[in-house]
């Protein structure tokens, strides 16, 4: 495997909650319990999980975009090209965003500024990171808009976000993220708000641009289909922890963690006819409360009393397949 571009080791994050009364200590809510992940140069890592699993917080932590306070890092390292991002100054971090790491957000409706034209927003990004002339940045912006598949780009530069459809806005978001040629692109649910036909277009575009620019990608989604279409490696998250990690083919062929198996079997597919869906019982756990042991145990069909005792560690089974479940050996 090529050397890692991004290495996250043991990332722990807390949020300070409002104090119950003025003299009390602020209670802390742990949202990430020691996340390890790594993205190789030019590789693509998929992170899958449901709401509250901590996938977006992980992305924002890597980007250094979590407001502090209330968010607080309690441990771990985020190494990008050998540099620990947690030790960088705000200015150094700002220089890294753009050409180093860029991010695409889920909501194309709210992530663009409604009072600036899309051209100004793309050019602003270029000028924030590079010293280029007005003319030069205009040309670059037009070129980027063409790359992301916006027709008659020169004329669209003066359009405002409300004049674009959801799919086009997501293309503009991509243009903004990619205009400084980042080495790592983090895409947080880039297609969740879109229709399937548009989703297929955007995913295709993402993969084409990845190949063209040779950048690495971290794609966050709750949709196993999107993972199957785009990722090389997959990380499954549940309640702020990584519960399974494997190459994509292996994860679909031989999922080890009961939660991963549940995720794969609870969605109906086009190729199979099932009488009944195999649902995962219960609801997602709330971050504050919860049992002491495995967070998935209350919903797990394979749970034994030992699961309640301690939180299972992520154990590597094959060279690159790891799962956090004490009964993995029983499933084979």
């Amino acid at each position: 495997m090529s050397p890692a571009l991004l290495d996250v080791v043991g990332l722990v994050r807390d949020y300070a909650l409002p104090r119950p009364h003025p003299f009390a200590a602020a209670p802390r809510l742990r949202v990430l319990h020691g996340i390890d992940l790594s993205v190789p140069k030019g590789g693509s890592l998929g992170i899958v999980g449901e709401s509250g699993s901590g996938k977006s917080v992980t992305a924002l932590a890597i980007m250094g975009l979590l407001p502090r306070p209330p968010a607080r890092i309690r441990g771990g390292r985020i190494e990008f090209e050998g540099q620990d991002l947690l030790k960088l100054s705000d200015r150094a971090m700002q220089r890294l965003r753009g050409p180093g790491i860029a991010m695409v957000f889920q909501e194309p409706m709210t992530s663009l500024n409604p009072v600036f034209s899309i051209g100004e927003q793309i050019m602003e990004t270029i000028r924030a990171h590079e010293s280029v002339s007005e003319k030069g940045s205009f040309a670059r912006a037009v070129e980027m808009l063409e790359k992301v598949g916006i027709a008659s780009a020169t004329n669209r530069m003066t359009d405002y976000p409300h004049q674009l459809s959801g799919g086009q806005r997501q293309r503009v978001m991509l243009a903004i993220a990619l205009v400084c040629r980042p080495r790592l692109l983090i895409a947080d649910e880039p297609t969740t708000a879109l229709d399937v036909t548009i989703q297929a277009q955007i995913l295709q575009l993402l993969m084409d641009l990845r190949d063209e620019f040779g950048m690495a990608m971290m794609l966050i989604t709750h949709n196993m289909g999107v993972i199957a279409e785009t990722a090389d490696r997959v990380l499954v998250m549940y309640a702020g922890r990584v519960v399974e990690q494997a190459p994509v083919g292996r994860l679909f062929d031989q999922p080890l963690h009961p939660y991963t198996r549940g995720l794969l079997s609870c969605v109906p597919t086009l190729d199979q006819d099932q009488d009944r869906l195999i649902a995962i019982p219960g609801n997602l756990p709330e971050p504050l409360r919860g049992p002491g042991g495995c967070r998935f145990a209350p919903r797990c069909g394979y749970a034994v009393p030992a699961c309640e005792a301690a939180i299972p560690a992520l154990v590597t089974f094959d060279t690159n397949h790891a799962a956090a479940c004490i009964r993995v050996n029983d499933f084979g």
Partner: protein
Amino acid sequence: MAALLEATGLTKHYDVQARGFFCRVRTALRAVDGVHLTIEPGETLGLVGESGCGKSTLGRLLIRLIPATAGRVMFNGQEITNLGPKPLRAVRRAMQIVFQDPFGALNPRMSIEDTIIEPLLIHGSRRDAAARDAVTQMLDKVGLPDSARFRFPHEFSGGQRQRIGIARALILRPKLVVCDEPVSALDVSVQAQIVNLLSDLQVELGLTYLFIAHDLAVVKHISTRVAVMYLGKVVEIADKRSLYARPLHPYTQALLASVPVMHPSRRRRGPSGEPRITGDIPTALAPPSGCRFHTRCPHAMPVCRTEEPALRVADAAHQAACHLLAK
């Protein structure tokens, strides 16, 4: 078998004011444009299409939550398009709706019991032991504990709230339930629970569903027949098996080809893939002439630009509106 619901030429136009320089120009937004549809008793008719294609509007038209511009709806052999408020209320007992957003569809200031019992009160029951028993039964049927009745919506998760919405819709023992994207706001692990619950209740209570969704796999799972909508028109309607195995309309084919694969070995990359469609859905303010899909269709012919294709019978259980079928 007589159809439970039959819609003929159902149309809904919204007046939209576009501002001209000197005058206001009124244009019609054609949300639903001449839809013919039947729903047989006991079946689940799936309704799919991209956002903005008019599927929710159609669902609401069918149970007269909104008045139609033209066309008519027969429910149980009775025309409901022009019913006055009183007879309409009597018919409404038999047609209910489950909404998409479980956070917006429940009144945050009403307890769960108040929410579920309200339809009974509206339809003339008293708030007596019998009505409370009905709530208990309904809570049990949707898989919530009886203690839930005194609690309020904010205490429940999305999936549990959707169960409350279902209980409220079913307490009147309706015949037809319109499910408007009932699972799209839920996490995937909870979606399956609600889909299974809806299937179980259908068998137990003999319900007929109109199931509106944009997720083709969920619709395939739950439906007996499926209708595909594009820009206010039904472009294909068929038996589930027939539609998914042999989609006739290029739009249906493109929709199916756009669904992400369920295994990485079946990735479709590169330009050689199946016919994917390009571009966005056009605005319903000025739909394209002829066949509304011709602007995005990989097989468009000159005739598609000028003539609107009618729904053609391909075989007994399969109809599609495409000029390619005329050949």
